[in-house]
Every structure is written in structure tokens, then in C-alpha cells.
């Protein structure tokens, strides 16, 4: 049975995954945190925590609120910064079989380019996920991903700074998801992942004020799955590069829906908090489904549910 997928067919390095199950940025740390709970080397790829040029302290508490089948978060990109990722994390990843991608997010276009240049040629880093849709930073983030021209500008700047495979992660907080997808593809994205979290809020009724310290947050978890699936379906029909589906995937059946909608791979996010083994359980569930259905190659499933 062949589960392998190629996410960057036109890139000189390529981005070959042993299977289509990845972890979503911000929900799997730097990979090391889960390594004593299950064999993370069995996964298709790991995407690390969203990384900025300088370390960030993040947003005020509270940063989390659970909603029905969902989680609102306003972490605000607390992270160790690109230099620490290269110095402390990449050498660990270099010894791993599973490819690791670094998720980068900038306040300005040149932040993205500088981070991409620093990551170029670093052992242990197999690709970059360009986050143009973090909804938590007022100064940048969502604005880049909301408009095709800005999204393309960021993508082109990163492309010019590195030869690493580029996955560009789209935000659902835009009026034109297909337009943004086409724009980043033309600007050099090797693949497109979607969706980042839709923006939401919660009100603390006893204190009569927004529950999250940052007022707004990003919604994740099974609550957003139909929205993510619709956007993956739409984008997969609009672009000629591989698409990676993310948003509320908690079971193998969820993952297969995204693959049938046109995704070449999937990312598991919030489900890892509920069940740290979720990525592995999902991979095993996909294998069982293929066995049951007599499918030899995962490629037979990609886009199989489109009409």
C-alpha cells in the first residue's frame, strides 16, 4: 500500500511525505513534547509552532476558551524566535526521519524574507509554512492573507529568499479564498495549506466583558470542520499545486473527507490536545480504510469526492 505524497513536485528539494498525516502549527510544539507518548517518526510531517523574527511574549490571559466542539485561542504567537529555533531545535530535527517544517509569521513583508533566508540550508528543516493568516496580531497577520495582492507579495518575498519548499497557509478571514490561493500559487507557493482559524469571540456574562484577554481569538476544533472542508474543496478546484487540509480534523473519517475533497495531505491540530495520539490514530484509520476499500495508492483517494 502506498501512502506517500509529494507536496512540492516542482521544487528542487521536493517535499516527500511517507504518508499524508501532518501536525498543525501551534498544536504540536516542536515535536519533542509528544515524542514520549507515541512514535512521532511515523507521521508524514511535523509543522512547528508559529515563529517570528524576534521572541514574542504573546497576549494577556485568558488565552483559551472552550466552545461547543471548539476552542477559541488568543495565544498571540508567544514563541522563542527564529534564532532559537535554528540553534536549539533544528539540530534535534536533523536526526529525525520525519520531515519538519517551520511555520513563520511576520509583522512586515521583510520579516518573512529575513526568516526564510535564515532557514535556507539549515540541516533538519525540510520546508517552510508561510503563515499569512494569524488572526491575533493587529499589526500584520490577517491583513496579508485577506487580500490576494498582499498574500502574493509575502509569498514572492519568501520565494526570493530561499530554495526550501514553501507551503503557504491561508486564512479563512477573507472574502476571496480562491483569489488568494491563485495569487500565492502564481507567486511561487509549492503547496497551499488551509484553513487557519476563523476569528471569534466569547463574552464572560458574569463580568460583562470579553472572555479572552485579547478580546478576539481564533476558533479551532471540530466546530470549524465544514467551513474548512468547503474552503479546501473550493481551493483544490482553483489551483494546480497540492493542497493541505486543516481545520477540525479529529478522526480518520474526517481526514478522508478532506482528501476526497482534494487535499493531498491533512494537518491535525486541536484534536492533539483532546487525544495526543490523534495523529497516529488517524493515520492508522486511513490505512484501515484503504485496506477495506481495496485501495493500493492514496493518490486514488485525492479528489475522489469531487464533482
Amino acid at each position, binding site marked *: 500500500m502506498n501512502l506517500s505524497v509529494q507536496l512540492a513536485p516542482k521544487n528542487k528539494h521536493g517535499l516527500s511525505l511517507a504518508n499524508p498525516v501532518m501536525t498543525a502549527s501551534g498544536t504540536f510544539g516542536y515535536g519533542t513534547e509528544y515524542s514520549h507518548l507515541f512514535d512521532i517518526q511515523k507521521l508524514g510531517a511535523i509543522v512547528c509552532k508559529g515563529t517570528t523574527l524576534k521572541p514574542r511574549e504573546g497576549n494577556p490571559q485568558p*488565552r483559551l476558551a472552550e466552545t461547543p466542539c471548539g476552542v477559541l485561542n488568543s495565544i498571540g504567537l508567544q514563541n522563542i524566535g527564529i534564532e532559537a529555533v535554528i540553534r536549539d531545535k533544528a539540530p534535534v530535527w536533523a536526526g529525525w526521519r520525519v520531515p519538519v517544517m517551520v511555520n513563520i509569521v511576520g509583522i512586515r513583508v521583510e520579516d518573512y524574507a529575513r526568516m526564510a533566508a535564515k532557514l535556507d540550508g539549515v540541516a533538519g528543516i525540510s520546508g517552510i509554512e508561510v503563515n499569512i493568516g494569524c488572526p491575533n496580531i493587529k499589526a500584520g497577520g490577517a491583513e496579508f492573507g485577506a487580500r490576494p495582492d498582499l498574500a502574493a507579495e509575502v509569498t514572492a518575498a519568501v520565494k526570493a529568499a530561499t530554495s526550501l519548499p514553501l507551503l503557504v497557509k491561508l486564512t479563512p478571514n477573507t472574502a476571496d479564498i480562491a483569489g488568494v490561493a491563485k495569487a500565492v500559487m502564481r507567486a511561487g507557493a509549492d503547496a497551499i495549506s488551509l484553513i487557519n482559524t476563523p476569528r471569534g469571540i466569547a463574552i464572560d456574562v458574569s463580568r460583562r466583558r470579553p472572555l479572552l484577554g485579547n478580546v478576539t481569538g481564533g476558533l479551532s476544533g471540530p466546530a470549524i470542520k465544514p467551513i474548512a472542508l468547503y474552503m479546501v474543496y473550493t481551493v483544490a478546484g482553483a489551483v494546480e499545486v497540492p493542497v493541505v487540509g486543516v481545520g477540525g480534523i479529529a478522526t480518520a473519517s474526517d481526514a478522508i473527507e478532506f482528501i476526497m475533497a482534494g487535499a493531498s495531505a491533512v494537518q491535525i491540530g486541536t484534536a492533539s490536545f483532546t487525544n495526543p495520539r490523534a495523529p497516529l490514530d488517524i493515520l492508522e484509520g486511513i490505512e484501515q480504510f484503504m485496506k477495506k476499500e481495496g485501495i493500493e495508492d492514496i493518490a486514488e483517494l485525492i479528489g475522489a469526492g469531487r464533482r
Partner: protein
Amino acid sequence: MRQEVASVTANAELMPQVHLMWLESSQIASPAQPGQFVMVRCGEDFEYPLRRPFSIHQQDGSKLALLFNMVGRGTHWLSQCQAGDELDLLGPLGNGFSIHPGSHNLLLVAGGIGIAPLVFLAQQALSQGQAVTLLLGASTAPQLYPEHLLPPEVKLVTATEDGTAGKKGMITDLLPDFTGWADQIFACGPISMYQTMTKQNFVTTKPVQVSLEVRMGCGLGVCYGCTVKTKSGLKQVCQDGPIFDLDDILWEELANGGV
């Protein structure tokens, strides 16, 4: 730290809205230390995506107990679990209390449900030959943790806000009478209790460890949901805590929602 499917052996309402649950969980119970916690998966499927963190209340061989307040949907679901049901636990997590080698007299201060981690601590301290005094406070008498569940060697002093049991007032009102005796102080309660303690002048003379509770996502240091600002920089409550030195936390900022 392990992920383990544990079976519920008992679950009953101990005080109004507060449940005591015992679980058979050999992999997590055995290595657990006082002050550490577990993350419990609640609900069927993914209805409640975030696990709930609970201090380990007691440990007995391969069994552990949780003491929890029914505050929301997840804990309400947990309260309905019955003996024989299985729960998915992650643990033991966090750093735990630290009893200094030279300490003989331990003063424990519990505000309401804050008794949860302190019974386990009292049991361990007594087994090591240390003396334990417990200052136990609640808003009313029925909300006081039952004395018969405490080790008999514990010296118990109680206070209630309405005066229906023990001394009338806040438990922190009693602190000045006992701090001279104590070598170390361990507290668990609401942030307002900790804020009161920081204003009491013994803080500078006696070491105080407190158990901190904030909203958590993963419990493993991955999501940065539980970050707090301390005098020594940003800390993750789930990994660097939940036990902190009282004077290390910037309480005013935390109470105001600041990181």
C-alpha cells in the same frame, strides 16, 4: 508522564457541588508527587476538546483520587461518571510541591476547593515524620472538607466566612498565629487569597509555595495557553508549575488578566 485509560472505582458528591472520584491508574498514580496534576478527557468524542486539569488529591498504591468542583459542562459530565466507567488521563504533570530537607513544621493553607492537592501533601509529609497544621477555610460549614478524611495526625484549624463553623472570617486571618511555628508554608486557593498573603508581612520571612490554576490547553507545554508572567520571566503553569513561590508571581497583573 503517561497517557492511561483509568477505571473509575468510586465517584460521589462529598460537599455541595464537589465530587470525590477514585480511579485505578497504576502508571500515573505510582510516580505521582503532591502538587502534580492530571489532564482528564471529558465527554464522548470531541464535544469538549480540552482536557480538564485536576490536582492529584490523594494517592493510594495504584489508585488516585480527584476532588473537583462542578463549574461547567466538562466537570458536570465527570460528575455523572460511575464506578466501572473508563477515563483517559494524562499525567502525572507539573512540578509538584518541594519540601525542604530541613523542614519539620509544615503549615498548609486551603481556601475552598484548594484543599485538593494539600491532602496528598499532608499524607506524604506525615509519612516522612514532619508535623502538619492545616488551616482550612470555606464560605460556609457544609463546604468544609470533612475532617474524618484527613490523616488523624493533622492539626486542623478551620474558618468560615459566615461563621457557621470554626472561626468567622477568611482563612488568611488566622495565618499570623501560625507562621512563627512553620518552617514552610504551602497554600492552594483563589488568586484573591494569594493576593492577601502577599500583603502579610511573614512572606518575607517564611518560604511560601502556592498552587496556581489558570486555563490550560495541552498540559504539556505545547500550546502556551497557560503562560503567566513571573519575576523570572514568562512561565508555563503546566510545565514550570503549577507550584510557584508566592513572591515569584506578579499577582496584580494576573488578577487583572495580564501576562
